[in-house]
């Protein structure tokens, strides 16, 4: 949300003659925003299929479609906003297959192609405006190459904390690989070019502890997750004493930068031994794989940045014990509203978003929309993950979205258990579930 985006807007009637306008817009803007030719063509294809679907299925009588194309450094994003409350997105499930023997299947084929052409997608309701479908395509980057690297020859006695430049960021990526090789790290550190683009695009912020001769003694990174939470990575130290003041200085630079913003909480899901835990609150832990394949329990910590003014959360009765215990332990005032299925009309199809971290054999599932088929859809996803050898499967539930609470029973039946509560990580607090069968 804080990134310095370049944006271009196209507003067009949902009518097939405009398809070339949309495809041309998507491709040329994506290239202008830095996407390579291949990725730009993928995004163009997705735009074409989505727009065609809107013309044929969603808005057959026409309607104004706003397409916003924006660049965030390492990605280009298309936001389609259109006046509809009904949009069947089941083809966006990674497990989706379509039958070409019926018209409904053919209608979904275009969306299936679109979903496979992009890296991420999202759909949200825009109050009074209809739906917003977001498609995101990332640039392709070379992975980290082995290169001779060393931290400062001796611990820094003097340093300042400042934002590192592009070459320093690449050096930090190599230093992380050297000093934190077998510790869980977010995947963007494995692609130095992506790291640089994320920082320059404003999505990721950074601070480095720099000595008098330019030696880099440590670094910290942070980025927004939603509108109220900031996730930080580190602090990382390179050849410094364990009690070095650099850790506190790096963390203070991060907190100082976000203290007067709308951020309510600072979360760290990749804590290093240098993280001053007494300044944070323990959120829980999950099993996770390091790059060398070893599996350890990864903790999550957080600190609120301001007074907690309380909020309401939607919780299924079967999850109530867990959240009540966690809210009590964390002294987070919450009004817990219980959710029950009372037989109301429901959409038949659910949509799940999957984000893979193939380096560490893990996948995260975010529910996009509720459907009666949720549990069978989830089972299909789990079968796919098993086939792909994914060990760690996480499911993230947003307690600020009442419909998500209804997924609880299906999750528990399929072997998921709650392991983390992340305050303010989404519309409300997030509960992270981990598949116990794989975790045990």
């Amino acid at each position, binding site marked *: 949300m804080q990134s310095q985006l370049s*944006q271009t*807007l196209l*507003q067009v009637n949902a009518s097939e003659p405009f398809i070339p306008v949309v495809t041309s817009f998507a491709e040329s803007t994506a290239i202008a925003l830095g996407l390579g030719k291949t990725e730009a063509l993928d995004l163009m294809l997705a735009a074409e299929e989505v727009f065609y679907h809107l013309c044929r299925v969603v808005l057959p009588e026409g309607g*104004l479609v*706003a397409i916003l194309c924006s660049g965030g450094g390492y990605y280009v994003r298309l936001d389609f*906003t259109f*006046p509809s409350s009904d949009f069947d997105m089941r083809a966006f499930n990674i497990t989706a297959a379509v039958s070409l023997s019926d018209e409904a299947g053919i209608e979904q084929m275009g969306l299936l192609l679109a979903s496979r052409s992009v890296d991420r997608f999202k759909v949200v309701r825009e109050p*009074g*405006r*209809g739906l917003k479908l977001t498609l995101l395509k990332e640039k392709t980057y070379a992975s980290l190459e082995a290169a001779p690297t060393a931290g400062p020859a001796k611990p820094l006695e003097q340093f300042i904390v400042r934002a590192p430049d592009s070459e320093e960021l690449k050096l930090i990526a190599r230093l992380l690989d050297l000093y934190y090789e077998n510790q869980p790290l977010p995947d963007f550190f494995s692609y130095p070019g992506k790291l640089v683009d994320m920082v320059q695009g404003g999505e990721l912020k950074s601070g480095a502890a720099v000595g008098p001769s330019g030696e880099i003694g440590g670094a910290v990174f942070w980025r927004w997750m939603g509108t109220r939470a900031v996730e930080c990575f580190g602090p990382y130290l390179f050849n410094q004493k364990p009690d070095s003041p650099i850790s506190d200085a790096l*963390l*203070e630079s991060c*907190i*100082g930068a976000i*203290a*007067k*913003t*709308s951020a309510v909480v600072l979360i760290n899901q990749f804590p290093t031994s240098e993280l001053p835990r*007494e*300044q*944070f*609150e323990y959120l829980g832990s999950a099993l996770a794989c390091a790059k060398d394949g070893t599996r350890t329990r990864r903790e999550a910590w957080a*600190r*609120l*940045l*301001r*007074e*907690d*003014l*309380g909020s309401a959360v939607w919780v299924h009765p079967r999850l109530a014990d867990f959240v009540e215990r966690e809210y009590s332990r964390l*002294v*987070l*005032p919450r009004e817990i509203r219980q959710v029950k299925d009372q037989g109301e009309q429901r959409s038949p199809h659910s949509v799940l978003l999957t984000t893979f971290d193939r380096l560490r054999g893990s996948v995260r599932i975010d529910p996009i929309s509720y459907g009666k088929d949720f549990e069978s859809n989830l089972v299909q996803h789990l079968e796919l993950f098993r086939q792909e050898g994914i060990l760690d499967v996480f499911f993230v539930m947003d307690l600020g979205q009442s419909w998500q609470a209804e997924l609880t029973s299906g999750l528990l039946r399929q072997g998921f258990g709650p392991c983390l509560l992340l305050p303010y990580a989404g519309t409300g607090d997030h509960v992270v579930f981990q598949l116990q069968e794989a975790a045990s």
Partner: protein
Amino acid sequence: MRKNEPLLARLVPDYIKRFEAYIPSKPDDELKKIYRCPRLFRLNNNENPLGPPFAAQEVIRGFPPPQASVYPSGDVYHLRHKLAERFGAHPDQFLVGNGANEVIGFVIKAFCREGDNIITADKTFAVYEWVAAFSGFEARLVPLKDFGFDDEGMLERIDERTKILFVCNPNNPTGSYWTEARLRRFLDRIGGRQIVVVDEAYAEFVEAPDYPDGMALIGEYPNLVVFRTFSKMFALAGLRIGYLAGDLSVVEIVRRTCVVYSVNSLAQVAALAALENSEEHVGRTRELVEKGKSFLKRELEGMRLPLVCGEGNFMMIKLPMSDSLAYRKLMTHGIMVRSMTGFRFPNWIRVTISHQEAMEAFVEALGKILTHR
């Protein structure tokens, strides 16, 4: 898309897009419900627990309801004359606002235009920085030095587009202050090239002989603007009234950006009454603050907690835990303090000095939350 939907992306200036609105605390009754505490000691806003001076209390009690239908004095006529009499100045040297916060906006609007900047400290009252930022001006923040405003650091940051320097004296939240000699040196170095605002919101709490009386320096330094408030010592925070004073030529400019009729009638008469025989009220308050500070210092030093206790009716305490967690835990004991991460002092809390009962309740609750971590 809705019909006639405003094109906010085009309409909203970038500096507003970047600015995040401040979310104030919920009302006490809501907080008590949220944290399930039957009583609440408010130690978060540096309010005076004694309440307004007796004369002001009388005026508030006797305010005739029909008077609420009549517009107040648009330029706070009687209070400005009273202030002029009190400080030996001209009534037009004063501008009264809806709290001192409002007069910050008057000054920035009067002197800054696109591309200009203001300078203040990074860890001080945040409203100078906020008003500059959401008005489209750069706020240059100079790190505190030994918990005090860094005069050399501020001077170094001045360029040809610097219009105003804000000095909070004594500083909220550290309680540090510039002596008269130091303030004079600073003003001499500025030499009239910029406006220097000295915010004296807590001036009435300071007894140190070397503390400068900004009002007395205006004659000598016409680029000096002094802020005062009725919210702290005079305990009229709920009525919102504060003022600025400066040289006639400067105030005449600032008046052009001043919103008239923004100060309500009750605030005007209560402030006027508060100045009558104020010595007794100031004396009682200072006594309470002194007693509360020495009690807290003794207790907190016993807990081996680092303190910053300067001038003003507050002190800062460094905790071996997150300040926001301490806030929540203290709230469950009915104690509301200010968590200081928002002031860029992570793990510190600021506590208002209050009645002995509140101080004892705070110490007891703090002891509990530190023991049961």
